[in-house]
């Protein structure tokens, strides 16, 4: 064999080798994984694409081209996720990142379709943990029936972030005749909630472990698109929907009262709260009305449609616990008032600051 042939063979082997999928052998995330070179590529291939690759993402173009059904509108939203700890009873950072954005689209009346996922990683994050997070993202996306069509990863120096932050943006498709909004809400309408309140917030507080409190409380993180679709199908006249995340049901109702300039009356004894959540709130001096949810929504429907709405919601597992919790009135516009079981009443205001437990 000539020297030329030998050289060609070696070059061919190198070319061949370069075509092999890059291997990821690192045990932790390093700055190199965010530098845009081979390490970045191997991370993308071995972690992100391996977990939730699809026809759009696999092209690794700078953007996704999406086919929107003719005559429909799109709903576009974005959300950042920085929860600590990243795993808690009932869910994880990855679940929240998908469900949070899916639910924002769902309560707008849209069918969630496409999501993007961006990750900010702290140097030193164990690769196994990243694989877990990304695995949760993939599973949650599959469950919610959405495709992840684009993404980005950045790595920052140790100490510049706390492990892993995720940002998801999402697009949902909304039929052209859907009218949902605070401006549709009228006095006499009824307020529904799709299930128990306060589960997510308490699960995360307990998972932080600094309370030395043990209770059987799980986050309710879940996609709501099936429940919202069922409600809209059964009650096309549904006025307004919102997922009461941070700030809880109280904040969602206050936003409604302010936006629609109506009064919202809540009947305290109708509020569904899991007994362990109620007990933990009682101990910590928190009000479940202000504790976050990640798999519930509140909806306003015309009074004569309440039965149809509840029947439709209860047929979907994620909203099986749906109940009516209040009424819209014109007596105290802009204000949310809770009626206590023995006929007293109190204002339910917006949350001020972070929920601080009472001390005695």
């Amino acid at each position, binding site marked *: 064999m000539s020297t030329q042939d030998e050289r060609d063979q070696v070059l061919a082997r190198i070319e061949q080798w370069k075509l092999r999928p890059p291997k990821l052998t690192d045990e932790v995330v390093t700055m190199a994984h965010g530098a845009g070179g081979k390490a970045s590529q191997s991370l993308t291939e071995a972690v992100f694409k391996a977990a939730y690759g699809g026809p759009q993402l696999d092209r690794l173009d700078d953007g996704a081209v999406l086919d929107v059904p003719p005559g429909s509108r799109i709903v576009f939203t974005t959300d950042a996720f920085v929860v600590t700890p990243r795993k808690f009873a009932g869910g994880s950072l990855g679940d929240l990142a998908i469900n949070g954005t899916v639910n924002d689209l769902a309560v707008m009346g849209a069918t969630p379709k496409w999501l993007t996922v961006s990750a900010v990683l702290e140097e030193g994050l164990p690769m196994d943990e990243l694989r877990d997070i990304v695995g949760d993202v993939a599973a949650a996306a599959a469950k919610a029936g959405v495709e992840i069509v684009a993404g980005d990863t950045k790595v920052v120096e140790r100490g510049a972030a706390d492990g892993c932050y995720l940002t998801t943006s999402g697009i949902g498709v909304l039929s052209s005749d859907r009218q949902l909004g605070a401006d549709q809400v009228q006095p006499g309408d009824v307020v529904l909630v799709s299930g128990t309140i306060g589960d997510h917030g308490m699960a995360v507080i307990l998972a932080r472990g600094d309370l030395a409190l043990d209770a059987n409380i799980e986050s309710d993180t879940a996609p709501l698109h099936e429940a919202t679709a069922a409600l809209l199908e059964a009650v096309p006249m549904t006025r307004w929907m919102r997922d009461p995340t941070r700030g809880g049901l109280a904040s969602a109702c206050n936003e409604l009262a302010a936006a629609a300039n109506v009064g919202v009356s809540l009947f305290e004894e109708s509020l569904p709260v899991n007994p362990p959540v109620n007990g933990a709130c009682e101990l910590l001096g928190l009000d479940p009305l202000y504790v976050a949810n990640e798999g519930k929504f509140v909806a306003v429907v015309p009074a004569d449609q309440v039965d149809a709405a*509840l029947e439709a919601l209860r047929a979907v597992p994620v909203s099986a616990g749906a109940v009516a919790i209040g009424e819209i009135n014109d007596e*105290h516009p802009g204000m949310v008032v*809770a*009626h206590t*079981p023995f*006929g007293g009443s*109190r204002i339910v205001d917006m949350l001020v600051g972070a929920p601080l437990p*009472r*001390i*005695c």
Partner: protein
Amino acid sequence: MKFVTEFRDPVAARALIKEITALAKDQPPRKFMEVCGGHTHAIYRHGIETLLPESIEMVHGPGCPVCVIPMGRIDDAIAVASREGVTMCCFGDMMRVPGGKSTLLEAKANGADVRIVYSPLDALAIAEREPDREVVFLAVGFETTAPSTAVTAMQARERKVSNFSIFCNHVTIVPPVKAILDSPGMSLDGFLGPGHVSTVIGTGPYEFVPREYGLPLVAAGFEPVDILQGVAMLLRQLAEGRCEVENQYKRVVRDGGNTAALKILGQVFTIRPHFEWRGLGFIAQSALALNEDFAEFDAELKFEVPGVRVADPKACQCGEVLKGAIRPWECKVFGSACTPETPIGTCMVSSEGACAAYFNYGRFRAKTRIPVTST
């Protein structure tokens, strides 16, 4: 929820409201002070004010530990927290209490290491976990929380945790009640005694109220039925011409108090000659300090605290509110300059503060009560 729901029973509550209304009808208007902030919070939280007959006024007393902290003490805490190497641990409510210039929350944003804990023992655990930090626990509260601080001090000594200290602001309940009774223009007809404090000190220390001031006092629990029953018991005493200390909260409060807790209070604390109360001024023998045996854990000795007295803001009428001389909304700055987001006075900070409770829960009175339905 066992031991809670029973005391939120609408049927029992309605029966008590009926009794209160009947008793009140045959009496002149009555002004009762609920001493404890926990009562104030519960009264608003459950809408109890909206249920009582108009002739009965509940006056919100000085029993919210956050509300009675003077600004100078907050400044001292901020000064200690801002020192290099110091970690200040406090209850969540203390974060937003305004000092002379700023709050602990602002100090934290500016780089001070301030952490929220739920128990003084958590602060001690931090000290053991982080031996390079000087960990200071900002202790506040009445006899209710003082025993847990005392236990923590004892454990710190036992475990020789030398990087732990306590900035003690514990206060006692009887002196301010006395101060209120002695204040000019006092027009109260009786007291709802503080339930949690009474679990520690018992009901004996209140005997001077009927004896020296001729007013009834009922130590009561914190659930709606407890409070309503307490009010009914006060009205019954007045109707029958009796005047004594009664115990509504028998399921928790023993007349003699908690002797074990009282014993450790005596072992760890000494009474300060005087202490400043927000809005009430200096009250003699009204607060606790660590005694000589625990001097090594006293943050006031370990660190230099400025100890500058800061006069209450002129516009703020927290003092009048605490004394029951005016109601929260009668204060000049209530709801305008002073709100829960930007509190001027401490009564607007804690959810147990009379002003914050009124602001959050009480502004609305239903003209027509909406019938309760559940689906």
